[in-house]
């Protein structure tokens, strides 16, 4: 073979290299924590989209609640389609477990589908999202895992109560205790957390403490994921515990905020 053939081969190879160098196909590790700038701090970005309405005084509104999309991508897509077919929701809260093993591409696939939702979405962290480098990827992609915001005179408190996967003893109850207080005469204070207090991840002490914090602060409803099915129960006493189903159930939970009450409804689609 002549030297010319060498040249052809090398040039072909260089061209092939350049063609296949598109970012999506390059992965340094399934555990990598490299977040594209368009997908950084999405909870904050999405709240900023709501700023104008958020500062208005109370008027009735509705939100949609979803959870545990894991790798139910097809079912999640269907749910997103249904959400977009409605025009009555101000925003959506995803109650955590966006991934199965917290691998890098799972976070990307979630973000890709979630961003098709026309209204802003707030994403909580779930236990599966804390495997490997998941917690750090979550913080890059969505922001701090404990956060709260105000919307039309209601305080939404998003609490990270993952314990086992973060290899810690207790969730950050000091933070929750400070934040769950109705300090500005809000119409409602509404806590959200991925894991419900009766789950084995909660010690008996933590289970009692969580419910007691709700009672002390006169919280009526506490919202959770993790169980993959719908539930609206008074597990212990006065406090209502709302469980959000996974997309495989083909249900969307709607929370309807009225001046004197919060209505909860699960709609099959």
């Amino acid at each position, binding site marked *: 073979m002549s030297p010319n053939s060498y040249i052809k081969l090398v040039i072909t190879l260089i061209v092939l290299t350049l063609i296949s160098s598109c970012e999506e196909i390059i992965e340094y*590790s*399934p555990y990598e924590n490299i977040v594209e700038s368009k997908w950084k701090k999405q909870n904050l970005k999405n709240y900023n989209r709501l700023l104008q309405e958020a500062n208005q005084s109370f008027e009735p509104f509705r939100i949609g609640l979803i959870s545990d999309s894991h790798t139910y991508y097809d079912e999640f897509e269907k749910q997103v389609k249904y959400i977009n077919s409605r025009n009555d929701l101000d925003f959506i809260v995803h109650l955590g477990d966006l991934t199965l093993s917290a*691998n890098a591409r799972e976070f990307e696939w979630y973000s890709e*589908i979630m961003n098709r939702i026309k209204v802003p979405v707030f994403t909580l962290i779930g236990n599966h999202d804390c495997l490997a480098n998941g917690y750090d990827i979550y913080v890059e992609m969505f922001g701090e895992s404990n956060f709260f915001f105000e919307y039309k005179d209601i305080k939404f408190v998003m609490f990270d109560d993952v314990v086992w996967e973060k290899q810690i003893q207790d969730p950050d109850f000091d933070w929750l205790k400070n934040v769950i207080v109705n300090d500005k005469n809000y119409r409602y204070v509404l806590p959200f957390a991925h894991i419900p207090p009766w789950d084995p991840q909660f010690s008996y002490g933590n289970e009692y403490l969580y419910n007691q914090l709700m009672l002390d602060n006169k919280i009526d409803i506490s919202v959770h994921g993790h169980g993959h099915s719908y539930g609206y129960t008074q597990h212990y006493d006065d406090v209502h515990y709302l469980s959000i189903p996974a997309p495989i159930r083909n249900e969307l939970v709607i929370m309807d905020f009225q001046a004197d009450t919060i209505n909860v409804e699960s709609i099959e689609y």
Partner: protein
Amino acid sequence: MISVNKIKAILIVGMLLVFRVIYGQSEVSDTTNIELPKPLKSAYKSRTMVIKTDTVTYRHRWIIPGQYKVQYAGSIGFMSIGFGYAITPTYQPALYFGYLSEAFGGSKNTVVTISLKNSFYLIKEPLFNYFNPYVGFSINWGNTQNTFKKLPDYYPDKYYFQNKIHLAPFVGGEIKFDLNNRYFNGFGVYTEFSALDAYLLEAIRTKYVKPYMVLSVAFGVTFYLR
């Protein structure tokens, strides 16, 4: 942080240099007249050992890896280095050590991966004299925070599947050239596409994840010891 563009530039410059070496030497085809360097000479030297009435002849050569590799990407690190053996002309495994960190690849978390790449070469004679296609599977052992083979005790049984070891089937191809060097007589440039087991599973069980979405590309070079 080293960007993908810089890597591309490095790859191109590297290939041009390699091409220059190959082209510059293409007139000389006989490598046998180059003397072997001392360490290799001693490795190839046959030694004898007498055990009772048996005389055993052996060489150190078999233990010295015949292939030295440098790879970019491929889900086992930003860059990885490896060494391999041609156990048979068909089966040529290689062991890689890959590294990824914030300064070296741009990941906020550092990952160290050890990967056993089992390559099976499909044809005896290279296509067009130079091209060797191969298939195989890698066993990737990932070390970063919160990866485990066995779950800590506080979890219920089988709460999670282990996330430390991943299998990744791959297909690849290498273009191999002869080289006139005291140590190396061959040089190869390879590209391969792999699919991590966890991603592959999603491609199989969901419509959303398309097969191309699970692919991971790797580029690398191999030096073949004389």
